[in-house]
């Protein structure tokens, strides 16, 4: 009998203890952090003198990564809440088209066009969410339907209204509009021109902008990305609502029984995803001055890939915004870096696939360590 009694006291004798250091290391973002380090090391070794790490080069991949980050934040929170959205790419095209049609074709003030577009698109996100909640269908199917519906309208509207698939001229009408500047402008221009003066940044060698710094400010796109990441991270880890997001994705039924308003959480997350897509679209339209029917193609996959590389669980309940942002950074840096390194561009997809597989296997391993899942 003595055996049994002794055993009963030491409750955890059958499980090894983990060291403090290992505890601190093992977090959802770990995969993303490791990936980022690897990627930067690789490019520093193989493409250092290609201009990738010049001020212009850095701005270049930061902008591309910022784009991915904006949609990844939305997709990340939605995925943690247990759903996902295949209509992100179509939503980007649709939102951009709406802004252009409202402002150029209908001649509305640009701020109004943007505001109305935000309202329409987040409402569409809510519709997505509402259908998922009410019918209990997988969000894969519902948002796949919206992928087609929205893309169809994005082609149909400009075609019937303007007989083209690109609507341009937004830049002209946006001149001086306060809200347009929030999406298309740049900040810290003063600082950068000072950098240019003191020679910290190269300047243009000729042309109308001779003497100005090649990088003349931080684009609002990057500002939006950082703002959304901070917002998402705080929302997820530091607030009550963040706990609800985890709970809704972890087990909707259990969360509902514990008093979490799961339906509200999910619909809000669909709306937030649509909001992020619209931010993406607005930045793009304001920067480039036109909206095209093919904008945003395949962006839904890119968002999901960034999120998954960043360690989130496709089935919900687990993940981190920082991780997703790192995933987007890896994605952007690899995409642009391969160009800098001069790799045959069709191989980019092959790399992407391999990185995705490797990242996800690493993340699974890390997650199992964290959660004790088997």
């Amino acid at each position, binding site marked *: 009998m003595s055996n049994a009694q002794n055993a009963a006291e030491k409750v955890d004798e059958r499980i090894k203890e983990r060291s403090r250091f290992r505890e601190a290391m093992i977090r959802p973002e770990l995969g993303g952090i490791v990936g980022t380090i690897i990627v930067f090391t690789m490019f520093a070794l193989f493409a250092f003198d290609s201009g990738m790490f010049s001020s212009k080069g850095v701005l270049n991949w930061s902008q591309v990564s910022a784009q991915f980050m904006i949609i990844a934040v939305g997709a990340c929170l939605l995925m943690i809440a247990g759903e996902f959205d295949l209509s992100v790419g179509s939503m980007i095209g649709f939102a951009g088209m709406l802004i252009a049609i409202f402002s150029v074709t209908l001649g509305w003030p640009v701020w109004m066009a943007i505001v109305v577009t935000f309202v329409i698109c987040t409402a569409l996100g809510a519709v997505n969410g509402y259908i998922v909640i009410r019918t209990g269908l997988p969000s894969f199917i519902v948002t796949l339907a919206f992928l087609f519906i929205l893309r169809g309208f994005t082609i149909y509207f400009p075609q019937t209204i303007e007989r083209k698939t690109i609507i341009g001229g937004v830049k002209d009408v946006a001149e001086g509009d306060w809200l347009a500047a929030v999406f298309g402008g740049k900040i810290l221009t003063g600082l950068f021109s000072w950098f240019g003066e003191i020679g910290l940044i190269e300047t243009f060698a000729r042309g109308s902008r001779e003497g100005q710094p090649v990088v003349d400010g931080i684009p609002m796109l990057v500002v939006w990305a950082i703002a959304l990441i901070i917002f998402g991270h705080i929302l997820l880890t530091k607030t009550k609502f963040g706990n609800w997001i985890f709970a809704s994705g972890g087990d909707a039924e259990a*969360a509902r*029984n514990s*008093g979490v308003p799961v339906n509200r959480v999910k619909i809000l997350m669909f709306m937030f995803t649509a909001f992020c897509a619209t931010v993406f679209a607005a930045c793009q339209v304001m920067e480039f001055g036109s909206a095209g029917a093919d904008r945003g193609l395949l962006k839904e996959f890119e968002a999901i890939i960034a999120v998954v590389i960043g360690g989130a669980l496709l089935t919900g309940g687990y993940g981190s915004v920082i991780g997703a942002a790192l995933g987007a950074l890896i994605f952007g840096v690899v995409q642009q870096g391969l160009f800098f390194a001069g790799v045959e561009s069709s191989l980019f997809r092959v790399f992407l696939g391999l990185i995705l597989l490797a990242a996800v296997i690493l993340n699974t391993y890390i997650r199992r360590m964290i959660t004790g899942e088997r």
Partner: protein
Amino acid sequence: MTEDSKFHHGDPVANKPIIEMKNIEKHFGSVIALAGVSVDVYPGECHCLLGDNGAGKSTFIKTMSGVHKPTAGEIYFEGQPMSFEDPRDAISAGIATVHQHLAMIPLMSVSRNFFMGNEPVKKFAGISFFDHDHANQVTMEEMRKMGINLRGPDQAVGTLSGGERQTVAIARAVHFGAKVLILDEPTSALGVRQTANVLATIDKVRKQGIGVVFITHNVRHAMAVGDRFTVLNRGKTLGTAKRGEIEHEELQDLMAGGQELVQLEGSLGGTV
């Protein structure tokens, strides 16, 4: 409370019931899960709900905890008529439930689970933040009180054993100052020691003046802690009896619908 019930109604343990459910009906499409069930719970009593598989026990307590809205019938909470729109309403009114299929999220940490739906907040620059320090501290303390030593408050619930999870769920319900604690078959998957633990907890909670609704298939467990016993059968109540007014065998008989069991007892020696 059907006319032909053998039971007497249990006398109130305190003066006024916390919650009274009157003639509750619940239909799911063509399935009639509850066909008029009345039960009341007094502070400080343990009210056992017994009955066969599919009798409607879980459905009944789900109407009590706001998961389902009853198709017909009335709910009075502390004398006031009440209608719970969703579990949040019931929880904030003071009804805590530990559901049969555990209300824990394996991927989340113990402390996040503990406070799920009841997150403590602290204001900072006018914005409410989840007060993690407070949550962690409380969780560790409460779990220690229940005799469970966590590796840390951020240990995932998925790493706990079934019995430990059950304990977390109960500790959570008790912590949030429930006036009524509902436990749906908390002991069915537990070992002897864990069961004893849960029963002791029920006893402790009851003594704090909380009304406990305890669902079980095990007559012995019910007899161990119950003050009153209500037997459900096929969506109807067969009546409520007080402790001491009813024998073990009688209760068992009622639960099983009598007849068939008698047939079997011969070969099995009445030890079921």
